[in-house]
């Protein structure tokens, strides 16, 4: 073989000399997963797996932050073997990847059951998988996964790390070795700028940055590499779900508003009862038909109609020059 050397994507040992550790926490799943509206079962196609826009932006932000600190990036994802091709693509960017096995296969899960999974346990498992690489100064998550979930994972990660947390970010930059400055959207096009002390867990929106492409050398290097699987905790991520869930969702039923009782109309004649019930003989305002000559006149007619019926104040339609 004359090709370049292949190195498997082995987990690097804890090497603090390699600079601060940035963790990209990815949820790699079918980007077009569907939930059956009748029984709530989820279908995921292993061929559809990929990085969601939010996760891709998160990974790019993690890479940029690591570059600005001369640090390194570890990407961790929970999932079955079918997500390995995507992790390999991530590894081609020079990122160390680790997969936490999941009992989830591609199919047959209930959405409600997944919602009730133990996110706290999941956060512990994810951090246990990262621990061999050192203590993260920054964890970046996508703020929204395509197949939803509770969105509670970043909060549990922050809790476990004793870190600050910021959500819904569109920009991220380092502010010295102690902090990051982040931006998030507010209403009316405003943005809020926050200084977040490290360690921090930041969730970013799928906006603002585009994930870079791996170099050809990087792609070649990982072409047949194995993705390391973390079994340090001896349990799979979803294995912790049953029984220990902190979120309990019971059976759901359709919303059925209470019936409103209307008294039966008085009278002996069925015709009169029917008339009373339908209000057919009650006088109503006839519809107003207007056909004014020009637009200004039409506007005045409409405004006076609205004023007459109390939709607008009468003084708002105070006649200007030439109004009736």
């Amino acid at each position, binding site marked *: 073989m004359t090709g370049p050397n292949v190195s498997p994507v082995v987990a690097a040992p804890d090497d603090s000399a390699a600079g601060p550790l940035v963790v990209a926490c990815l949820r790699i799943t079918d980007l077009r997963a569907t939930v059956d509206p009748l029984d709530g079962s989820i279908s995921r196609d292993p061929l559809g797996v990929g990085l969601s826009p939010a996760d891709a932006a998160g990974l790019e932000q993690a890479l940029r932050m690591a570059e600005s600190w001369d640090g390194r990036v570890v990407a961790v994802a929970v999932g079955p073997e079918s997500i390995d091709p995507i992790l390999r693509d991530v590894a081609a960017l020079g990122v160390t990847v680790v997969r936490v096995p999941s009992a989830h296969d591609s199919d047959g899960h209930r959405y409600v059951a997944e919602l009730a999974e133990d996110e706290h346990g999941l956060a512990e498992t994810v951090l246990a998988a990262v621990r061999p690489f050192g203590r993260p100064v920054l964890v970046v998550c996508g703020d929204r996964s395509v197949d939803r979930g509770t969105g509670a994972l970043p909060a549990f990660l922050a809790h476990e790390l004793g870190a600050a947390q910021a959500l819904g970010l569109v920009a991220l930059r380092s502010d010295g070795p102690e902090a990051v400055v982040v931006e998030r959207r507010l209403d009316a096009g405003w943005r809020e700028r926050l200084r977040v002390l490290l360690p921090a867990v930041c969730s970013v929106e799928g906006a603002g940055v585009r994930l870079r492409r791996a170099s050809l*050398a*990087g792609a*070649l290097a990982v*072409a047949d590499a194995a993705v390391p699987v973390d079994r340090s905790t001896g349990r799979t991520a979803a294995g912790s779900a049953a029984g220990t869930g902190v979120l309990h969702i019971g059976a759901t039923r359709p919303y059925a508003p209470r019936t409103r009782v209307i008294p039966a109309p008085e009278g002996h004649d069925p015709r009169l009862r029917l008339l009373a019930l339908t209000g057919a003989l009650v006088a109503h305002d006839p519809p107003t038909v207007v056909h004014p000559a020009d637009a200004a006149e039409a506007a005045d007619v409409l405004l006076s109609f609205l004023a007459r019926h109390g939709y607008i104040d009468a003084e708002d339609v105070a006649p200007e020059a030439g109004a009736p």
Partner: protein
Amino acid sequence: MPEPRTDVAAFDAVVVGAGPAGASAALALARAGRSVVLVERGPFPGSKNVYGGVVYGRVLDGIIPGWWDEVPVERWVVRRSTVMMTGTQSLSVDFRTDAWGAAPYNGMTTLRSHFDAWLAGKATEAGARLVTSTVATGLVRDGAGRVVGVRTDRDGAELHAPVVIACDGVNSFLAKEAGLLSRAEASHHTLGVKEVLDLPPGAINERFGVQDHEGVDMEILGCTRDIPGGGFLYTNADSVSIGVVLSLPQLAASGVRPEELVADLKAHPTIAPLLRGLTLREYSAHLIPEGGYDTMPALAADGLLIAGDAGAMTLAAGLWLEGVNFAIGSGYAAGQAVDRALTAGDCTARGLASYRADLEGQFVLADHKRLRKAPSLVLSDRVQQRYPGLLCDLAEGMFTVTNPTPKAGGLKVTRAAAARHGVTLRQLAGDTLRGLRIFG
């Protein structure tokens, strides 16, 4: 993770395209101990590929013995129907055999995202390096003009090798750049549009009269209005593939939208009951090179071979519609030819000439050569526009009971049907002879 900081990587061979041709070429080379890189522009092998339904596996016997035990099959085809239709009639020749439903099998339906990935997996198991999500944007040549690699869209980084095998499909930009393929000729191509419709396995078995794992292949003529082409319907494990194949120039001239013609076919009284109530799972479209042997490009240049659809190796000869098997056959032969050329140290067009000789000696080019006149006959006006109706009318004339009028003789019915469709008996006899000469 250490990352080589060069923009050039060198191999014994670069194979572009991880479809059946490229995967087979890479497999042959990897088995010969060569270092080979397989470049795929999609996120996984098969992600850009669509086919008209049946893979004939005989070609795999010599390459992957016992392939049928592991191939990702949807259904084994045991029923093959050839259907002629008009707007209101249809005439089927329906063949069924148990022989095709047991090893070594004949044809199968599969999904390309599964099949191509399986075949590429064989290549990587043998040692080929697969790089996905990477486009080969152009050829790299040395001072003498010989091809010595490809440029990729990953920052323009290059893959170098003494030989490049271009298996980059029907649009093959590499073959065009090398001058092997002239400007794309619409008349040598057809457009296939396909719908995959959900249908539970039990319902497939009931509607198509098959057992589990058994499948049906229907080839349909006369369902494409004035546009030369045909239709197809195949059963997958839990879905049905239906579509039409349309000659490009006439499609363009007609102004008809392709999906309209699929809707036509689905609404035909013969097809509609089979598909009642189904929902669309995926719509797709792809070009097919249908020019046949006479339009095939030269298959080798200095440092370059082409295989599969890039070399127009799709057999669209009416009775036979095959492509994946030709891709596998040509790809594997290309890999072996490159291995021989590397051993001999001569990767010029002359050194690679054993590729074409090999293909001529086996089914890949032998079939194409024997059926070289078939595309023009199959796409001819009479076969497309007149014979389906003629044959349907003939059947209707023979089988309609006309009491109390006495039955008409066969010749009279034939003459009447021929006249109604503007075909003389002389033309009919002539085309029959032509067909016998081509297919016989």
